[in-house]
């Protein structure tokens, strides 16, 4: 299916996707010479960020205009390169290994250092998995499928487990969407998500509950409908350059241009769309809740931030408000576009097709907002892995490596970081416009109607570009 094409500017689209993926890939692989401290916002305030905001908005608008003006090319098949073929059974072992690592991490959470920057559990959960793995998935495909810590144990226990019961399909992926919101709340609002002990309790409980749900309803069903990481990671990897396909007990791993995979153009359910919207809203709120604007609005002096425990209620409301606002805007744009185009598929179906355009934006936000944390806390993680229980071990020779926080400090780093962040934000939105355009072109035969339906969403994307760049350049205090 790698040769599947849509009506629309496929060739250019693929080139653009390739470019986006390549740039994100390059950015991920850059040596660590260039990253700004979170509190180094002061240096960013002196940069001409206003020009970037205007330029970014123009670039996204121009990419839409290019779609309007450019001629549709003929359909053309694009070959994928086969990278490897591995036995499907390997997944049991990689999952078991992951389960084992989780057990060690939980033990570290309960009995290791109390310092969240020395204990490997919070560093793995927040830095390696939530930040790092999300970005890796975006570029290199659904690795999570191989390392989810339930598959292996469930397969081992399969002979003694009862036959799975049917999970009602009307539940769709709503459990996963709600769990993702709960996870976002724990990350952004709960006062101590980094505390190793409390994190170990929450993570241990989540593993057990998920295990029970999977044992009851089957691994596949619960991974599709209830386990939020599996759903999120599957969706976020839809435009990766690497993909895989099961075929007769073997898994074929291929590399191809982003956007050429069938799953990236099939319709998502309303609940999956809601999950993607919630994911993007949560990263956006993570940035917004630190701005002077939000802190001022909730009556907090940004120079004397009272700590998370003082703002649980306003931030809970803010996070849910952000998810509702973004969803409302998204659906309002779709409804407006559908109205302008004189009808078309049901709104929910349209949403299921067009919500894919949020994937590149979510990835870009993730990259831009968590880049500094990834680079600095990633180093703490390397140190912690060598001595997970603070027993004076040096398993990987990194226990005494100095953590170079300076890679993200000072005006030079701020300049490089800002450019990386702004570049990725703009590219993410340009990619979103391309995805949206190609989806609309596939739905509507009439070119004019296709352009009309995507117009309001494109305006939303231009606005979100401005918002994203503003978030990264406005004064912050928390």
């Amino acid at each position: 299916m790698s040769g599947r094409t849509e009506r629309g500017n496929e060739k250019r689209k693929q080139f653009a996707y390739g470019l986006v993926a390549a740039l994100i890939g390059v950015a991920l692989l850059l040596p660590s010479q260039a990253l700004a401290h979170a509190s180094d916002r002061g240096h960013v305030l002196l940069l001409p960020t206003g020009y970037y905001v205007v330029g970014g908005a123009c670039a996204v608008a121009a990419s839409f205009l290019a779609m309007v003006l450019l001629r549709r090319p003929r359909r053309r098949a694009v070959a994928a390169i086969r990278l490897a073929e591995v036995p499907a059974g390997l997944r049991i072992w990689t999952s078991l290994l992951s389960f084992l690592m989780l057990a060690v991490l939980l033990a570290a959470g309960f009995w290791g250092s109390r310092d969240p920057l020395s204990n490997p559990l919070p560093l793995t959960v927040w830095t390696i998995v939530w930040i790092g793995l999300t970005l890796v998935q975006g570029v290199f495909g659904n690795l999570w499928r191989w390392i989810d810590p339930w598959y292996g144990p469930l397969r081992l226990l399969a002979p003694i487990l009862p036959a799975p019961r049917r999970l009602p399909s009307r539940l769709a992926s709503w459990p996963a969407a709600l769990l993702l919101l709960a996870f976002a709340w724990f990350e952004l609002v709960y006062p101590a998500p980094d505390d190793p002990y409390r994190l170990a309790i929450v993570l241990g409980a989540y593993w057990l509950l998920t295990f029970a749900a999977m044992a009851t309803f089957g691994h596949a069903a619960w991974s599709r409908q209830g386990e939020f990481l599996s759903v999120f990671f599957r969706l976020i990897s839809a435009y990766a350059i690497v993909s895989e396909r099961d075929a007769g007990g073997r898994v074929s791993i291929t590399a191809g241009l982003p956007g050429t995979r069938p799953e990236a153009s099939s319709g998502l359910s309303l609940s999956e769309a809601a999950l993607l919207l919630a994911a993007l809203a949560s990263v956006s709120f993570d940035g917004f809740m630190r701005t002077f604007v939000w802190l001022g609005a909730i009556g907090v002096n940004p120079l004397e931030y009272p700590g998370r425990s003082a703002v649980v209620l306003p931030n809970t409301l803010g996070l849910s408000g952000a998810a509702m606002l973004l969803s409302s805007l998204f659906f309002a744009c779709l409804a407006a576009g559908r109205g302008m185009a004189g009808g078309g598929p049901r709104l929910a179906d349209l949403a299921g097709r067009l919500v894919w355009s949020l994937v590149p934006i979510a990835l870009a936000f993730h990259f831009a907002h968590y880049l500094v944390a990834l680079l600095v806390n990633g180093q703490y993680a390397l140190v912690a892995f060598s001595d997970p229980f603070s027993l004076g071990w040096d398993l990987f020779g990194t226990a005494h490596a100095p953590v170079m926080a300076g890679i993200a400090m000072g005006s030079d780093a701020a300049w490089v970081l800002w450019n990386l962040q702004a570049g990725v934000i703009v590219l993410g939105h340009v990619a979103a416009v391309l995805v949206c355009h190609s989806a609309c072109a596939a739905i509507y035969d009439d070119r004019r109607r296709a352009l009309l339906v995507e117009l309001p969403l494109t305006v939303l994307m231009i606005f979100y570009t401005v918002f994203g760049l503003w978030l990264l350049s406005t004064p912050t205090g928390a």
Partner: protein
Amino acid sequence: MAGKRVDSILSTKLSRRGALTGAAAATAAFAVGPGFVRYAQAQSSAPVKIGFQAHRTGIGAAYGRWYEKTTNAAIKAINDAGGINGRPVEVVIEDDGTDPGRGAEVVGKFATQHKVDVAYGTLFSHVVIGSAPAAGEAKLPYFVVSEGHHVASTKLNRYVFQPGITDVKSQIQAMAPWIAANAGKKVTQIFPDFAFGYDHRDYLPPALKAQGADVVGQIAIPPTESSFTKYFPQIPADTDVIYHVMVGPAVLTFVKELGEFYGSGGPKLFGFIDSLEAVDINSPGLEFLDGSHFWEGSPRYAQEGDSEAQKAYRAAVGIDANGASVDDPKDVSTAAHMFGCWETLYVIKKAMEDAGYKGPEDRAKLVEATEALTEFAEGPEHPQGAKTFDGKIHQCFGIQNISKVEGGKLKVVHKTRIEDGLYEPEGDYTTQPL
């Protein structure tokens, strides 16, 4: 004797996990570590446990990182020199998220769960104020390194001490003689419009008055402000000195706009390095600070006349001649404050030795022994300089540095006397029951 030993140890490079690795690590270290022989005599003694309330996450994290490094270095030095009362010292670190609510929780955990001997290390004032009642309730001696006036105000409780860093009221007061004699008699203050700024607003004018100088203008800037040019016309034309204590991400913008407002002329500038702690003084936008003066608790840059103790301290903590990490020259330290961690740990050591401290049952004795301290001599244990200690208000008083921005560095041009910063005690903790 301890001091001499420290000198020789301080030249050893310290890894960041050297001391703060928790209970198990400390126990393991006893068996194999260099301190084994010395501890052997006191093998039956459990380690002295110090609960380090650290700002590892939240807004204080940049400070917290350097407080951790300094603590690490001091604990290593203390342990290498034989520990406290022949017992090794172990640090139990708990993150408070720079959150007063969690701060109180952490102090409670130190008392009941970790059963530490003392709690220590808090910087941010609101966390100190939030945590102090928990320390009082648990009767857990709580040694903060915050520079706030809250301890000395005697509004906290008998278990809270600040013996390693001078409080802000004293710091401000100590600046007045130099400002009046060298910078000018007419001072305009620009400060953020909240508690941090109010300390400067309230304590400077009377101190200047006593020196025959006056505050001619006070401009309070709303904390959410990020552009300042509109406030500058409020600066009285006859101002000799602008005394500025802006903080937050917009500080660089403030300095840049002030420079644009005055061009090459304008009044002299005097500031507190709190505005630019951990920020490279040569950052773009700060050019206008060239030739201006700053308060520094301890000098960021190595100075020509640095004592051996100061050199040894800098080497132990791992900062280079520019006050940045020796491993990472872009990582500018919080030099003006973090020395307080080093010195506070040595005060704890001294007080425990004076009290013959054996365990939590001796906490009251430890409080009294700390209150009985009166002065600390400059040396390896107090590299920032000599200090006096007022046991009634639980606060130390030290010399302060006034540094000039010159050639892209901060050069100390004046050291205040301890007496410059003394004031009438506002109460007496020793009258409170233990």
